[in-house]
């Protein structure tokens, strides 16, 4: 038995001998969930980043050197992710892209930070990730509180005076509801007439709708998920109550229209990051064309596209700071990078490493049940 352990240890040490690649390539890590329940996101991320890297290499690379993407599977699980991060650190990467889930990213943050590797997350929206003061951490996705801010702005812009906020007591929905409430109160001029939760999973919401109706709101902001949103719309229609509804990004699902029915869903507004086919920058259009030509499909969600933006930001930082030194790159990303044209719009980071600017857009359900992007302002 113990002999076997020794043999195994020897095997391990053999594998450890770092593979000596030619120095000319700049290595960039990609940590993404290739197995587990988020595998589809991770596989999209890998495709997008590799496609962009090929493109950059075709144009001569950066600082006259080619880039190489080294990907690792984080399995959508903090334990596997910590291993993947440790492994990436031994491969001589200058920066890493990823990953998707917030808790998964969090498990890797201090590993990369200790090793002085720039990390740009693409799908981790939990507020706390950038509140710890990690110098080398950035993200291209918005934070959870961003949506609350955009919701408040949208409600204000539509000119609603009496607002009802309804959530479903899940961490996400409640957090969003509270964030929106605080922002509305700060702005003033809007009265919150209702703030409560429904129980998700029920079939009949007429009780809560009647309660809502008695408060006479101008608009109802529902922060929960699409099944309840669909039922609410349907039963509101049946009651003959004609109040506009606005939903959070968890209502962005085609099933919403199926549950509510075309008639009831019509005119429903919701907030969401733009779906990939609605990305309107020239970079995004060219990129989506190339993506479709190669893989014969479109990326499934905007989160995977944001990993492409992370790569562009890293390459720009290497180019702009003329080095692969993490301190210089971090300085460049924090203070010098301004309005870089990315796939999802202009990219800049603030001193915490959060992306500046609003990614959230307003969508409206049209007569045919399609989600239509509303023009920005």
């Amino acid at each position, binding site marked *: *038995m*113990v*002999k*076997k*352990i*020794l043999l*195994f*240890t020897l*095997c*391990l*040490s053999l*594998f*450890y001998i770092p593979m000596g690649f030619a120095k000319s390539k700049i290595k960039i890590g990609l940590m993404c969930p*290739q*197995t587990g329940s988020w595998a589809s996101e991770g596989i999209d991320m890998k495709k997008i980043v590799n496609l962009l890297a090929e493109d950059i290499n075709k144009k001569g690379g950066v600082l006259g050197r080619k880039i190489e993407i080294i*990907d*690792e*599977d984080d399995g*959508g*699980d*903090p*334990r596997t992710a*910590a*291993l993947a991060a*440790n*492994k990436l*650190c*031994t491969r001589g990467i200058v920066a890493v892209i990823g990953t998707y*889930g*917030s*808790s*998964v990213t*969090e*498990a890797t943050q*201090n590993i990369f930070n200790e090793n002085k590797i720039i990390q740009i997350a693409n799908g981790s929206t*939990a507020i*706390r990730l950038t509140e710890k003061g990690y110098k080398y951490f950035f993200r291209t996705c918005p934070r959870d509180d961003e949506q609350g801010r955009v919701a408040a702005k949208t409600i204000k812009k539509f000119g609603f005076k009496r607002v009802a906020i309804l959530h479903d007591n*899940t*961490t*996400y929905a409640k957090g969003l509801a509270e964030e929106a409430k605080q922002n509305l109160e700060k702005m003033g001029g809007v009265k919150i007439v209702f703030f409560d939760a429904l129980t998700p999973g029920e079939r009949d919401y007429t009780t809560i709708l009647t309660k809502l109706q008695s408060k006479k709101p101008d608009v109802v902001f529902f922060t929960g998920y699409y099944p309840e949103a669909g039922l609410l719309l349907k039963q509101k229609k049946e009651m003959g109550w004609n109040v506009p509804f606005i939903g959070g990004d968890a209502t962005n699902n085609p099933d919403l229209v199926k549950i509510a029915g075309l008639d009831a869903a019509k005119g429903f507004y919701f907030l969401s990051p733009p779906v990939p086919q609605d990305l309107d920058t020239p970079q995004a259009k060219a990129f989506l064309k190339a993506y479709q030509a190669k893989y014969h499909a479109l990326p499934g969600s905007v989160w995977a596209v944001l990993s492409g933006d992370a790569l562009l930001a890293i390459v720009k930082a290497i180019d702009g700071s003329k080095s692969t030194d993490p301190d210089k790159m971090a300085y460049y990303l924090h203070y010098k990078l301004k309005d870089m044209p990315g796939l999802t719009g202009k990219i800049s980071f603030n001193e915490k490493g959060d992306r500046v600017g609003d990614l959230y857009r307003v969508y409206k359900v049209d007569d045919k049940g399609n989600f239509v992007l509303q023009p920005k302002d």
Partner: protein
Amino acid sequence: MNRKYLIWAICLIFFLSPLFLNAYWVDVLNNIGIYAILALSLNFILGDTGLFHMGHAAFFAVGAYTTAILNTMYHIPILFLIPFSGITAAIFAYLVARPIIHLRGDYLLIVTIGIVEIVRIALVNNIFGLTGGSNGIFGISRPHLFGLIIRRPTHFFYYIWIFLAVSVFLFHRLRNSRFGRALNYIKEDEVAAEGTGVDIAKYKLIAFVLGAFWAGMVGNIYASKMTIISPESFTFWESVIYFCIVILGGSGSITGVILGSFLLIGLPELFREFAQARMLVFGLAMIIMMIFRPQGILPPPPRKYNVDQIN
């Protein structure tokens, strides 16, 4: 005698291995260690007592969350929480195992799968507002030991493997005690055991609670190692992995279980280069194992007693 020296020499080399391994491989060894202790605690229930228990991740989760909640809310040092996490897990195990302990074989298996799923869903639903929902709990502090903060993979290597060594010693003693023999008796023939006066329900329950106690303590180590815990780490799949480690390594055998965790946790890391295909290789290896050696790689040796000492 030579063999003994060889074993000691190998142990010594193993304990010095962080000096020549890089952080990644040390961390792999840490994971192997954590799984080995968990599998040892499950082995006590599954291998020694013969209870088909596939919900071990639930007890692991209770221990980890106890540590996380008490540490982040009341700032109690991690090391003090080790026994406490174990006790919470043990109490939880007692409460859920008491009504189901009379179930046999597959029926027990199904119920324990139910337990692990209920625990996971309860954690996702932010039960009592304590568990932080699907985001989990973050900011768990590191263990402080005489002024040293256990932080790097190398530190954790010694922390985990010394804990494993202690566990091995204790489980070995327990296995060779009167109590351990009674458990084996239940495993081999329940009816005969009951007929000769072994209180089956009591012994099974003690095995369950002790196994859970140990898993709860590992939960503490895991929480302080990751500094963040979330429900994804305590899925049904995790329980299946512990189950496989015990069955594959040789149920009832301590060395077998440790070897099993090297194979199940270490091998997928060796095959990392193959990305998605590694799971395929891994599955194939397991099928071959089960066909050619269903009793496990290292089944426990038969008990030997010196005839002269019996009287």
